[in-house]
């Protein structure tokens, strides 16, 4: 997991014992367990570029649109819910051939980090204050 000042991103890797095209197709099939839309209270799902999806689970609505579908290597779609505070985050999947299987990566990026960003700011201000004080006092000493 890496962090920037304003957004969070999460990256995952799995090696799947099947060729990329099979893994790719499975990921876009909500009947397959482990795909994000498998467990559902309601699903509207249109996996093509500019296709929209809506997923309701335990009272939380999630929305997105597909921005890239490049079989068998890459899928990208957006992801919005109350957990993204209305921001459009991005989920990118890549499928690379690795031996007899597939190295699959999932990157969920652009998640808002309002609270962490605020505390980073508080932290940095704390350090900067200390630094200013340090130079302030050493200069006074020299004077």
């Amino acid at each position: 997991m890496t962090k920037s000042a304003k957004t969070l991103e999460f990256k995952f890797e799995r090696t799947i014992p099947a060729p990329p095209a099979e893994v790719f197709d499975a990921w876009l099939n909500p009947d397959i367990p482990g795909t994000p839309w498998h467990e559902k209270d309601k699903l509207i799902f249109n996996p093509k570029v500019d296709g929209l999806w809506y997923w309701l689970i335990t009272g939380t609505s999630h929305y997105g649109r597909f921005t890239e579908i490049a079989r068998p290597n890459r899928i990208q779609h957006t992801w919005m819910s109350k957990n993204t505070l209305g921001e459009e985050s991005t989920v990118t999947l890549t499928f690379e051939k690795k031996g007899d299987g597939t190295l699959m990566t999932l990157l969920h990026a652009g998640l808002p980090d309002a609270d962490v960003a605020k505390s980073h700011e508080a932290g940095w201000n704390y350090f900067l204050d200390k630094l200013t004080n340090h130079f302030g006092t050493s200069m006074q000493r020299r004077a």
Partner: protein
Amino acid sequence: MFNMENLDDIFTAISHSSRRAILGRLAESGPARFTDIAEPFDLALNSVTKHLKLLERAGLIKREKRGREVFISIRGQPLRAAAVWMHDYERFWNKRLDQFEEYFKDKRKKEKKA
């Protein structure tokens, strides 16, 4: 869940190495007096006081009077709460991907048997 204001206080509290060191020391050795906490640090006593105030505001330490002395100890709950908040998506995707990987492993096993 807990409120977001408290989360700000928790992250502020753990954003400084001296405060993390104080927490580490309290986690390791249990309740300690102010002088015991201040002793290993090359810090003015009033900055130790400031650090302890920030830790206390975040609910990460508590003070207890024993006789004439005050002992300070660590409270782990807010840190656990912060960790849960940070890892919501981490857990969500790991759970999904594990299931997905498992699906293919089962599929391969069945294919071999057939």
